[in-house]
């Protein structure tokens, strides 16, 4: 696994001081090209900032042992922990895979304009000590954090998004999963009048997704209730959605109405449509291709050239331990 991170090793000679990195970035922006070079520079920045002792102590072959943690209060920050610039609100709300409205990413915004996201409630049930139906207002009382995450779509494009949300673990701890609970199952609202795409007979509606319980309890797994400091926009899954940043975007189910704890692995929509292509795990992994598309590289929205895709979408240090001993090729 360690070896698969080879492509992000950076010789000390290539590590750029932060100020120089910023000015170079500006130059590239002006030129309209934020290339793979900028990406490498970004890695360089986080290498030197985590070791604290500067770039001089790095040997050329040394791998990044620890990436900086994702901050809990990112308000005001303009980049993620790896130095990637945020995508704009315009980009985030006008390019959405949300088949409940349309299979056209640009049509989702206009079609979701009148979507009614209030009142809203979420049923938390299944193998829990305290099943409860939460009103949206109750959920907003959980400790809301500002997290900047990279979102990597299985279609090989990506964005950097400043979410507001609470850790799913906070909610699960309150309802107390039973010892028999092994998985968490999520279900989207089923309402053909509100969501016209759900009338399409070629899909097993409603949309549903699932996580292993330990994945759901991981601190990076959040229920997002907003972005850019405002309530979650309709095309992004209002009023609340899952965000699991180390998995392909389709795992991060939108407009959730039901969270159920189960003992067996739950059905998910894409896994039902095409089981050999959309595995239950669907972790971002440049070394394991989707059977039809390569996952080695991606295009960050707003950039012209492709950039290499990172193992677990760059959250390797945070989540790799969840999969120790698991064959990621078989469990795609």
């Amino acid at each position, binding site marked *: 696994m360690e070896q698969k991170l080879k492509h992000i090793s950076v010789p000390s000679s290539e590590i750029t001081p932060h100020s120089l990195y910023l000015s170079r970035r500006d130059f590239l922006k002006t030129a309209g090209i934020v290339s793979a070079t900028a990406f490498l520079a970004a890695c360089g920045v986080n290498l030197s900032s985590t070791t604290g002792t500067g770039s001089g102590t790095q040997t050329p072959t040394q791998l990044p042992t620890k990436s900086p943690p994702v901050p809990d209060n990112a308000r005001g920050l303009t980049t993620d922990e790896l130095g990637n610039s945020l995508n704009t609100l*315009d*980009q985030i709300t*006008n*390019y959405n895979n949300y*088949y409940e409205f349309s*299979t056209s*990413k*640009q049509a989702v915004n206009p079609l979701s304009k009148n979507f009614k996201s209030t009142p809203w409630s979420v049923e938390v049930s299944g193998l829990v000590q305290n099943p409860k139906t939460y009103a949206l207002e109750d959920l907003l009382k959980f400790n809301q954090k500002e997290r900047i995450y990279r979102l990597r779509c*299985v*279609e090989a*494009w990506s964005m950097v998004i400043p979410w507001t949300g609470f850790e799913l673990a906070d909610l699960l701890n309150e309802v107390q999963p039973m010892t028999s609970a092994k998985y968490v199952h999520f279900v989207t609202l089923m309402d053909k009048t509100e969501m016209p795409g759900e009338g*399409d007979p*070629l*899909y*097993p509606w409603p949309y549903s997704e699932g996580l292993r319980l330990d994945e759901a309890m991981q601190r990076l797994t959040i229920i997002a209730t907003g972005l850019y400091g405002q309530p979650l926009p309709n095309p992004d899954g209002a009023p609340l959605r899952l965000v699991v940043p180390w998995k392909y975007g389709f795992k991060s189910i939108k407009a959730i109405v039901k969270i159920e704890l189960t003992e067996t692995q739950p059905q998910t929509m*894409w896994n039902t*449509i*095409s089981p050999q*292509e959309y595995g239950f795990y669907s972790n971002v992994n440049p070394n394991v*291709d989707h059977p*039809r*598309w*390569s996952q*080695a*590289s991606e*295009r960050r*929205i*707003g950039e*012209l*050239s*492709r950039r290499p895709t990172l193992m677990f979408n760059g959250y390797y240090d945070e989540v790799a331990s969840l999969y120790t001993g698991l064959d990621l090729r078989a469990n795609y």
Partner: protein
Amino acid sequence: MPTISRTKPKTTWFQVVIHIFGWLPLAWIVYAYFAGKLSVNPIQDIEQQLGHIAVYFLIASLACTPLYTMSGWREPLKRRRALGLYCFMYASLHVLTFTGLDYGFNLQLIGGVVLKKPYAIVGLATFILLIPLAVTSFRWWQKKLGRKWTNLHRLVYLAGVLDILHYAWAKKGDIFRLSGDILRPLLWGLLLLLLLTLRIPPVRRWVSSLRQKSARAA
């Protein structure tokens, strides 16, 4: 000296319509790019639009003969070359966008996709099949190759089938399980199937005889 053979064939309205539709999509893409009307992922947008248009022209060129069979109208037969060449133009631009704009001519990345992924293999095969057809589409080649020309140009049926597969496999879903985002490739595929069926000699003769009968009755 015979004068008839020297007169230039008259430009028909059908011809004009085809050439307008031939350039309109390209003009639209260029306009949309500069007017900021493409999505925030413009390269993918351009790539997919060019691909769609190539499919439309391929189907249109394959529709000419069946249209004649059904209607007895000869004009479409003379427009097959133009439609086929427009298909080739958009297919070329599509391939160029994929290799150049999308993958920056990075042969390693392109190889990782094209040599491994069925949708890309089938897409490339379609394009390769179209090359000799486009090159030999002119009268000189037609005369030179004679009977062989007809056989060679039957490859377009295969190109049509491969093209629809390429389209379907590039979408999220499974066309063989009728599940997912496959409605449009499915409809185009069914249309192609109908057009190819109308070319099977007994079917063609039967449709022709129906037409002649109804013409006599009228």
